[in-house]
């Protein structure tokens, strides 16, 4: 992966007619401006990934007996997780 350092207000060009500029930086957030031809699709990566996962979710037809198993197993594990509150803090 190419890694470049840019300052506020600077930009870079990708291919033909795509310009990415740094509009604002505050804390851990960077505001990015993009000018690109109309036919170039721009998506936040988590949106693209969410669309992909949604599609897989809709395509997986799950047997109800599997769900029954899952429901029971998750409940059991949750009780265990509650016994170890420190372990279960779940924020990646």
């Amino acid at each position, binding site marked *: 992966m190419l890694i470049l350092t840019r300052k506020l207000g600077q930009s870079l060009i990708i291919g033909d007619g795509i310009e990415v500029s740094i509009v604002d930086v505050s804390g851990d957030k960077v505001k990015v401006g993009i000018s690109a031809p109309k036919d170039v699709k721009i998506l936040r990566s988590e949106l693209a990934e969410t669309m992909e*996962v*949604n599609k897989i979710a809709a395509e*997986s037809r799950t047997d*109800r007996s599997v769900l029954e198993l*899952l429901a029971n197993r*998750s409940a059991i594990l949750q009780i265990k997780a509650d016994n170890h509150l420190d372990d279960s803090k779940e924020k990646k």
Partner: protein
Amino acid sequence: MLVFFFEVTDMEIMTRDFGQVTISDEGTIRFVSPIYGFEKYTEYVLLSDTNIGESFIWLQSVQEPDLCFILVDPRLTYPHYAPSLSEEARQDLSRKGLNNPVYWAIAVIPQEFRKSTINLKSPVLIDPDSKKAAQVILDEDYPIRAPLIPQEKGEG
């Protein structure tokens, strides 16, 4: 004289996993911000199975019998899951009828069900009073593929 205060609009729909089901209009969930990739489908009903309990629900499309998502209560596996919305997002949802929404996670349940995941980054919010719903992408750093069954320590 008989006066009907409510228009009775029961209708029968075909579902993916439950066969034919009678639904009422007031039970229909309407997405104000649709499920990403499924923008055409905004009307759903929630179905559940008493054997499975209320931590798993079926989000069944009213428009398309074959379209159905399994939603899981994220707190089943992640009891501390408590995402916060930005003030802007909260107000926007509130304007669209989601004042007190409940958070659900869309599940991906493969044949090898131990590898099931839920999407904690993009929960489905459903307001039980207004019956409005939205899929939102959180700013917070939650995984899109969080294991539904956490790996126990020492388990292979």
